């Protein structure tokens, strides 16, 4: 009997010690990100029968369980995807709207307006050289601002492309990591080992992946852990991984300059199709959407405005004559001996100008750059007081020229900013909401799987007392054994 007391006591000691060490592990990891608390599942040993009586034989540790719920984890991953999508959208759109923010500074709208008003000023004193300087200066500012916006848009585009490239590297690293962990977990669990902490690591990697795009995980029939990109294909299956590559395109490769330097994602082993057209969620989804929709839209709008401005201004300006004395015969016919160069038909802005890159390539014409008197105000030669060309150009400001005659330049420009502003403000609201949902999902997970120090403190006391009691039990058994031995003397 005594021997049984000893073994029961020993099993109790062992279980209490294991429980205490698990408690200690939990406390140690109380602040470890992604740690799932563990609890010892104890089980009473198989009882033995002695005659009519059934006698207990102590306790053993059945398993150390992770307190974890697959559905909660899935919800968290989804919230992460959603949150990083909106975060990235807001980030990119804020970058974009800053380019067009002229609340506290001068922007394209004001500059374009000043350009037209400088012609209006010129129309009051067409003879004046100083005002011509003003016109040319304002026109150069317009040119520079088109170029600035164009360059800023390109910079945002480059940043997005660089980010996609960088993401692909990070994703490949994570995939590799998951593949390795899969291998480890299977090996450990096949021999009955505890892989709780490795599973935590794998879940952390999955969470990181979820930030890039929406993913879906499951264990297949052969207990292989599979990671799929939703709508994209399999990224990891067991320990085999499907690497991604980012390919940069040259301008003409995708058919137009607008796509110059564009980065697309493909699977390394399937280069035929773009993965990027299937990714709609997560950070990559947001980056792609912003690049393909808003950036493309803005560039088109800007090019259209620049092109329209150049075209219309030139069409009017070409009708005018230079502000110089042009020799005529007695009947008033012009004698053009070529000494004055071109006397009419002069472009104000440089032509030809490709619509596709208008905002990037816009410039003043060589004639206007080299000589202020090449800025025409008069519709007739030798008429310094003739302001009709200047008036006509100033009137372009209020004409509905773009969009098939439905919008003025200003309206078109403001609509573009409005669209970006709306998208940015919508995205901010969404981000706020996604942040809330994510916080909630995290909190649900933490409530279930997180370590509570209060709880661990209670457990510590509980297991310590159990340990003390077991020790006492062994001591009692020992004394009992001693008493029996003493009888012999």
């Amino acid at each position, binding site marked *: 009997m005594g021997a049984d007391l000893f073994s029961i006591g020993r099993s109790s000691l062992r279980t209490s010690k294991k429980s205490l060490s698990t408690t200690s592990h939990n406390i140690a990891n109380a602040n470890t990100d992604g740690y799932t608390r563990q609890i010892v599942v104890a089980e009473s040993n198989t009882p033995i029968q002695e005659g009519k009586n059934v006698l207990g034989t102590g306790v053993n540790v059945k398993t150390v369980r992770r307190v974890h719920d697959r559905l909660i984890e899935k919800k968290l991953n989804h919230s992460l995807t959603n949150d990083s999508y909106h975060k990235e959208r807001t980030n990119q759109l804020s970058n974009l709207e*800053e380019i067009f923010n002229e609340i506290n500074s001068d922007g394209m709208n004001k500059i374009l307006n000043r350009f037209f008003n400088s012609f209006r000023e010129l129309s009051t004193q067409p003879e004046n050289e100083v005002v011509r300087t003003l016109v040319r200066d304002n026109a150069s500012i317009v040119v520079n601002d088109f170029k600035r916006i164009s360059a800023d848009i390109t910079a945002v585009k480059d940043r997005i492309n660089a980010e996609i490239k960088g993401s692909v590297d990070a994703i490949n690293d994570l995939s590799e990591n998951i593949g390795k962990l899969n291998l480890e977990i299977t090996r450990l669990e096949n021999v009955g080992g505890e892989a709780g902490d490795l599973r935590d690591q794998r879940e952390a990697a999955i969470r990181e992946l979820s930030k890039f795009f929406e993913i879906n995980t499951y264990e297949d029939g052969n207990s292989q852990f599979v990671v799929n990109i939703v709508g994209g294909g399999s990224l990891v299956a067991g320990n085999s991984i499907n690497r991604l590559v980012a390919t940069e395109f040259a301008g003409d490769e995708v058919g137009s300059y607008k796509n110059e330097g564009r980065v697309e994602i493909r699977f390394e082993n399937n280069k035929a199709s773009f993965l990027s057209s299937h990714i709609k969620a997560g950070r990559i989804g947001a980056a792609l959407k912003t690049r393909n929709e808003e950036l493309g839209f803005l560039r088109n709008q800007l090019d259209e405005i620049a092109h329209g401005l150049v075209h219309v201004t030139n069409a009017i300006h070409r009708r005018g004559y230079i502000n110089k004395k042009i020799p005529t015969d007695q009947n008033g016919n012009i004698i053009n001996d070529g000494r004055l160069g071109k006397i009419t038909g002069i472009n104000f802005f440089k032509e030809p100008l490709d619509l596709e890159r208008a905002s990037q390539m816009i410039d003043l014409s060589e004639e206007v750059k080299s000589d202020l008197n090449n800025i025409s105000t008069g519709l007739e030669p030798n008429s310094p007081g003739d302001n009709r060309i200047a008036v006509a150009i100033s*009137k372009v400001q209020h004409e509905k020229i773009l969009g098939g005659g439905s919008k003025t330049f200003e309206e078109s420009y403001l609509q573009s900013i409005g669209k970006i502003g709306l998208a940015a403000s919508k995205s901010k609201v969404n981000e706020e909401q996604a942040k809330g949902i994510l916080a909630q999902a995290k909190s649900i997970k933490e409530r279930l799987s997180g370590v*509570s120090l209060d709880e661990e403190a209670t457990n510590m006391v509980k297991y310590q007392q159990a340990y003390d009691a077991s020790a006492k039990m062994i001591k009692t058994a020992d004394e009992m054994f001693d008493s029996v031995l003493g009888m012999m003397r």
Partner: protein
Amino acid sequence: MARVSEGSTIHAINFSIGKTKEKLENLQLKGSNLKQVQKPSDNPIGNMEILSIRSKDIDGNQYLRNGSVAKAQLTYTENAIEDLTNLMVKAKELAISQSSNIFDTSVRTSIAREVGQLYNQALGIGNRRIGNKYIFAGHKSLTKPFTVNGEYLGDGNQTRIEVAKDTFVPVTFNGRDVFFDKTGSPVPERSPLDNSPFENLSNQFELQRPEPHFKENEPPQINRELASSEEPSLPDFARGSIFSDLKRFENALVTNNHEIIQDLLPSFDESIERLVEIRTVIGSTINKIDTATNAVEHNMLTNAEYKSKIEDADVAELFTDLTRQQNVLNATYKASAQMMNNNLMNYIK
């Protein structure tokens, strides 16, 4: 009972502090420049309106400047024409006094000299300038319009400028209209916007033509280019002018031809009448500019008010919010400190 873990507590604390601080930061930014709209996304539609109003503001200032330029030019021109009118009245008085055949040769000679003076004065008026600009030269504003013989070198054009959106007013009167008899040739005026190549750009694209510069109830003679083109066209030298009249008057005095002097009287009357009419036109144009300028100023004021409504923050509300948000933050800190510094471990000794 929901389980609370260290992690969920920390998340909750971070989330609530983060949110409160973000709100506070936004309010602080608004407080720093008292603007409600900091970037397009704060109020996308409002931002569009603000920018559009700012444009109208710049336009408005330009229109006001144009208006004052126009007024200055017109006033200057009016002074010149007033001087010319006085001169013609003087000429007419002399003509009346010398229209009978009773005369004194010495008086006539001295009057002839006086008329010669008047001629030179008229020439001076005809060649007046603002800065380097001849006011009576039409578009050829840098060419001296009248030769010593009264020959006109300018053209029949008139410069118009915009003093309010789509409101154009004439700012110059050419020598032909002012100094020559009315029976002149209509100078075909091409609008800068006629047959322009850009009309084909888009069917919709048609620039605003400057409106006819005078209404029906205003004297029509300045409107010659809009008159019937059937009228026979006469070259300048074949038409009577103030200069030719004065010259004839002077010659008639020298040659003692009182019939010619009598003949000239209606012509002087006509000239005076014409000058008075032009002055009326200038007067009404200045009125038109004043009206337009007032309208522009009024619009600018209304726009500024509207813009302020969209753009400017409500100071009282802003600072109330700011104080409230600060209190919220303090409360959050206090509550968080309570949560963070306490657990069972502290009580187990």
